[in-house]
């Protein structure tokens, strides 16, 4: 699905990512963990070029998207992204939030888009909020809407950038629930999170990042029950 070769990213003198090489196969659910400042969010954001890599290759669906002349807008349609702070459009109703991109990009007509929006809202039990505005929703509801907004584009892969970090604790469950459903439906996912329970339960693979490098990776059992790297052990001892 996506292959990353020799990815480097620096902000000024500061090297955030150092020679990342990674392959995510279709259907995989890769969870990226690590201390703050380890570069995991930057890594995720490089995958859809919200962050421009300093050097390296990112091959998505057979296309090297770091090449000049690649239509990045077209590529991004197939990679949904969910943000820590939801980033819903506050001036638009929930339905408009969901249908704006599909309609403006002429992927669906308005009726189709509204229908699809309703179908997805039903799946996350938020159909009664169709005409509400983001300001009227709780954090958990906003994040579920944000996930649905990405799904409207029928993406092949979903990127989650700390989707539950800005939520009150009692709302984390409802968002993780939607993400689990998505995982069970076979969606390819890359998730940066501090929710170790989610990583253990849903991940097919866990990456531990620190100082811009993937220090260790493996199945959740390997990483959580038998970490090899000293850094991984230290990190897990703090968060578990």
């Amino acid at each position, binding site marked *: 699905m996506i292959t990353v070769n020799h990815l480097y990213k620096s902000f000024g003198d500061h090297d955030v990512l150092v020679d990342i090489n990674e392959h995510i196969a279709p259907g995989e659910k890769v969870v990226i963990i690590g201390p703050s400042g380890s570069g995991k969010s930057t890594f995720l954001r490089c995958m859809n070029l919200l962050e421009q890599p300093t050097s390296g290759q990112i091959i998505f669906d057979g296309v090297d998207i770091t090449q000049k002349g690649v239509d990045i807008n077209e590529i991004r349609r197939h990679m949904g992204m969910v943000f820590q702070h939801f980033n*819903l459009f506050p*001036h638009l109703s929930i339905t408009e939030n969901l249908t*704006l991109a599909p309609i403006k990009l002429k992927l669906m007509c308005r009726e189709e888009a509204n229908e699809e929006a309703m179908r997805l809202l039903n799946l996350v039990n938020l159909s009664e909020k169709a005409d509400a505005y983001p300001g009227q929703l709780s954090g958990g509801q906003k994040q579920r809407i944000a996930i649905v*907004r990405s799904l409207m584009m029928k993406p092949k892969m979903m990127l989650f950038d700390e989707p539950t970090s800005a939520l009150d604790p009692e709302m984390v469950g409802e968002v993780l629930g939607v993400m689990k459903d998505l995982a069970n439906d076979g969606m390819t996912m890359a998730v940066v999170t501090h929710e170790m329970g989610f990583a253990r339960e849903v991940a097919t693979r866990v990456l531990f990042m620190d100082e811009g490098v993937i220090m260790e990776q493996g199945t959740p059992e390997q990483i959580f029950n038998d970490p090899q790297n000293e850094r991984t052990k230290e990190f897990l001892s703090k968060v578990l």
Partner: protein
Amino acid sequence: MSALDELKQKIIFVFIEDQRYMYIIKGLRTTIIVTLLALLLGLVIGILVAVVRTAHDQMDKKGLTGLPGLIMNILNAICRVYLTVIRGTPAMVQLLLMYFVFLASSTNKVLVAVLTFGINSGAYVAEIFRSGIMSIDKGQMEAGRSLGLGYAMTMQQIILPQAIKNVLPALVNEMITLLKETSICGYIGLNEMTRGGDIIRGITFEALLPLLVVAAIYLAIVMFFTWIMGKLERRLRESDNR
């Protein structure tokens, strides 16, 4: 003759005789036409300049190079010169330059005034819009782009609607300034309202009454806009809580 009768006689002499009030009525019409058209022109210029300036600044961070980078740099440089020159010189001088130099061949004084004030106002509107665009969280742009919308589309559909809402009070303020500033059009012989009052003063040798009336009309218009602005702000605050 009582003081009241005297005043009445004066009013008749100053305004009614020879229909002199028409100087003010016609002047008011010109003032409003110039203000509205200049405002429209200023809005168009302002949005364009603001978008170029912010696009350039955001691009600078990403380090865009090659031809698109060069074009943006040139556009940005033009915008900066425009902002510096227009905001750094008096509107009065700009008006005289426009009338006697740049558009010396034109006999349409309304056109000269509209262009001058439109270009002048555009510089201020641009900075108002730029601050509005910068006040929008960068996550909004990222969310739009991550859905596959282009930069221009995201700007138009997501950023600008929110930015305009945020800067509406400042824009009304700019409109009020513009309205009052058009009073210098008399210097190029355009019969707007201030000049209308001044012409009556010249004919009747009465300064107080005509100028007082002119002042009162400006005040009334400005108070009307302020009232509208107050209503608008309340409406906007309501929709923020929705």
